[in-house]
């Protein structure tokens, strides 16, 4: 499978500024050799994100990106125990896969919201030596106060069925991360499906079909999607008017505001799933690291530190939001096939379908290995199943039935355009046509990024205006600087005109794959202007970046 060492350029820059600090949270794990991330934070193959060798006074921890806010607490842990906790942040779903595959040997421990997912993977349980739950936070729904009052939820938590009704009739418009890419979205979907199945016990594979209709009604209110919690919160904070609610962990939702007031944070009354944040010692850790782990755990569980953690909005033995008695915990599926069936149904028949405008640079500089890599990355998105076990993240990130895949191939001019609708009656045939297009790409000519982007947006806007109930986004791949046609300033001006004309352009983000000699600053500006994200792609990592972007579509 593709590399997993990728993340947004913007995130990398932010991490770079803090990475050198005590207990800094760097981004992006490295899998094996030759997969090192090439983003600015890591500087190519000598990536500091690949942890250094073990040291008695350092605990190297692969952590969920939700844990950035506990870093100040870890500075105190370092002072008291003499052990510096070095967090490398990644998505939980991706991190769990890395651990189960045996690719996390450069880390001594993990710290994710939950180990449930890990335990379902082959090799997951065996990779763990021991773990200790440090704090908890339930999946919750944060609702703008005005909306909560309108729905009658200001003083009491709704049931999942009430949430479904409000989403279906348009009163609840919410943001949620992709269940395939992000743990909070995954936990939200599992909670909803389990509660709505009404069995009072664990979700079973046969329940998935029974709840699909209800989940589709829930998905009607899904207005903002993201591949990570960080991005979701960023978008919500930038424009809280777009949606009036967010699903996520309680600790993430508590600090957020809408309409000048804090969100009303609700846990559905018929149950939810709770992140328990187990700090987990890996079996591969050495003796010195085991001792460091024990010292850190003891300190984290001590009363003063538990109080500090409670101040981050987590629930601990010493406090935090409300008592724990108000949350009914739902069971987590014990079969991987159930999880797989639920995610597969979500992607192919439940979630709002997506229109993806693939805008790819095939200028002369793409000749040779680069074009081969691009074609391989695009082809990977047309393989509907990763294998007999179908690890989450592979087949599930392929183009899905009901999606429309538009393409704009460009150099100094637009070379080809087209649309392939992935037909639910014949997905394999549709995907084969996308593969044929990828195989037909030829490298030649200059680079007119902004001209191509305008063409892509005209296509995207046509869809967004005709079908407002679809997720529409542009994916821009480029390996060089703009050499032809209009400039970044021209594009910005044009974009402003579309906004002024009332066209729905702000609902169409651009996700940029920054490759080769592409200008990371200018591309980050395009992403920022459109409410998207820029991703740095290193050599051999391109497929992974395209897969990651699928989480945002």
């Amino acid at each position, binding site marked *: 499978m593709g590399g997993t060492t990728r993340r947004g350029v913007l995130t990398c820059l932010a991490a770079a500024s803090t990475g050198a600090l005590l207990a800094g949270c760097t981004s992006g794990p490295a899998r094996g050799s030759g997969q090192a991330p090439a983003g600015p934070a890591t500087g190519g193959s000598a990536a500091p994100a690949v942890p250094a060798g073990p040291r008695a006074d350092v605990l190297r921890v692969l952590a969920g990106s939700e844990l950035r806010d506990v870093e100040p607490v870890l500075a105190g842990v370092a002072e008291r125990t003499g052990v510096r906790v070095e967090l490398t942040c990644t998505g939980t779903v991706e991190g769990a896969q890395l651990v189960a595959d045996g690719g996390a040997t450069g880390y001594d421990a993990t710290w994710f919201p939950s*180990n*449930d997912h890990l*335990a*379902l993977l082959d090799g997951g*349980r065996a990779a*763990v*030596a*021991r*773990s*200790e*739950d440090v704090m*908890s936070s339930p999946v919750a729904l944060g609702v703008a106060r005005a909306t909560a009052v309108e729905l009658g939820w200001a003083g009491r938590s709704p049931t999942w069925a009430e949430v479904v009704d409000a989403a279906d009739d348009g009163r609840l418009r919410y943001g949620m991360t992709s269940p395939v890419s992000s743990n909070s979205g995954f936990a939200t979907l599992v909670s909803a499906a389990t*509660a709505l199945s009404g*069995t*009072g*016990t*664990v*979700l079973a594979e046969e329940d998935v079909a029974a709840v699909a209709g209800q989940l589709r009604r829930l998905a009607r209110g899904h207005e903002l999607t993201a591949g990570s919690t960080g991005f979701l919160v960023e978008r919500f904070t930038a424009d809280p008017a777009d949606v009036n609610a967010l699903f996520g962990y309680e600790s993430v939702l508590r600090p957020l505001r809408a309409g000048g007031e804090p969100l009303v944070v609700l846990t559905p*009354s*018929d*149950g939810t799933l*709770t992140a*328990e944040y187990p700090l*987990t010692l890996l*079996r591969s850790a050495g*003796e010195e690291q*085991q001792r460091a782990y024990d010292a850190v755990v003891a300190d984290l569980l001590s009363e003063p530190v538990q109080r500090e953690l409670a101040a981050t909005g987590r629930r601990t*033995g010493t406090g935090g939001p409300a*008592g*724990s*008695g*108000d*949350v*009914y*915990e*739902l*069971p*987590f*599926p*014990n*079969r*991987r*096939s159930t999880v797989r069936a639920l995610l597969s149904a979500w992607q192919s028949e439940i979630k709002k379908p997506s229109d993806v405008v693939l805008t790819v640079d095939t200028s002369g500089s793409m000749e040779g290995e680069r074009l081969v890599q691009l074609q391989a990355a695009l082809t990977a998105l047309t393989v509907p199943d990763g294998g007999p076990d179908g690890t989450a993240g592979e087949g599930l990130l392929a183009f899905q039935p009901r999606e429309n895949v538009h393409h704009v191939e460009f150099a100094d001019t637009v070379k080809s355009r087209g649309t392939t609708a992935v037909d639910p009656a014949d997905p394999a045939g549709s995907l084969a046509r996308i593969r044929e297009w990828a195989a037909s790409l030829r490298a030649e000519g200059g680079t007119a990024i902004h001209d191509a982007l305008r063409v892509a947006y005209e296509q995207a806007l046509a869809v967004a205006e005709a079908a407002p109930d679809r997720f529409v986004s542009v994916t821009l791949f480029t390996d060089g600087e703009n050499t032809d046609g209009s400039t970044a300033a021209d594009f910005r001006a044009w974009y402003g005109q579309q906004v002024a004309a009332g066209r729905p352009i702000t609902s169409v983000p651009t996700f940029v794959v920054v490759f080769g000699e592409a200008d990371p600053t200018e591309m980050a500006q395009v992403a920022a202007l459109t409410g998207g994200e820029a991703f740095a792609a290193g050599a051999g990592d391109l497929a992974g970046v395209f897969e990651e972007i699928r989480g945002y579509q």
Partner: protein
Amino acid sequence: MRKLVGAALAVLLVVAVAALFVLDRRSGSADAAAGAGAVTTLRGVIGSEKEDFFADPRVRGALAEQGLAVEVDTAGSRQIATDVDLDGYDFAFPSSAPAAQRIAERTGATEVSSPFWSPMVVATHEPVVQLLARNGAASQDADGVWHLDLAAYLRMVREGVRWEDLEGARELYGSPRAVLITSTDVRTSNSAAMYLAGAAWVLNGGGVVTTREQQEAVLPQLTHLFLAQGFSAASSDEPFDDYLSQGAGAVPLVMAYEAQFVGEAARGTSRLGADAVLAYPDPTVASKHTLVALDPGAERLAELLATDPELTALAAEHGFRTGDGSVLARIAAQHGVGVQRSLTDVADPPSFEVLEALIDAVAAAHGG
């Protein structure tokens, strides 16, 4: 997963025990050892729930006074019975009698004794046990000790009763979940196997399951007891930790060793909440921590653990019963826990082979 302690940690423990012993000798405090002549070092493989006991410096000191040093590795009781290479060990100390029986058969050892035992209990919360009582599945005896009627509970499970359906749920505990005890993963953990043994006894009409027909008759509901829980933890401290940290909303009922509950109460900083309730399933199953002496020297260890006043008191501090359980009752009372002094309603576990067959059948139903 804390109890899935790898070999590395077990080695650490051995080093620690050995180091302490050397220190004792150097400091001259081990005069008893000197008086007893040479120190005998015994190597054992034990269930992980007794690891804290053998690591306790007071226990090591008491053994040293008797001229004994004990080194232990830990493994699951099922593994000790079937997988662990017992060469080089002086004793095996699994947490169940059926596992010990199997070890004795495997090795030809004849010296088998059960110095410690611990009944299975259900750790719950005051509102939850009150709700069960109001619906006829729990009651308090004359000493104020709570009991869970296992047959009534199994009936509720069979009928798919939810907490919110019960009479009084609105005031007491209105969870939408089905009534179900949280346990560990039966595929890996002895405490879950003991739960299975107790349930099998009740479902079999109050007798040990022996024949294939009996096994097939009880299996559907046994399977449901474990599968309906969803994801379950590999080792026994995990669901009990969830019970301690997350409260009634997450874990209304958890199957545990009595030793876990009492041991927690006896800790300096107990995490038991104000509404924590210890209840005995009727019938319960006793987990007999059974020592199989693979070497004659280990027989003395078994005898000391069962009879030495200092060691039996320390065992009680760790929540284990020795003899008639009166030492434990005294210690538990000091920490505000009322235990049932003498257990009258106890189900016998099936033979190792039948228990394994039942577990394998439940495991097969877990599927992929």
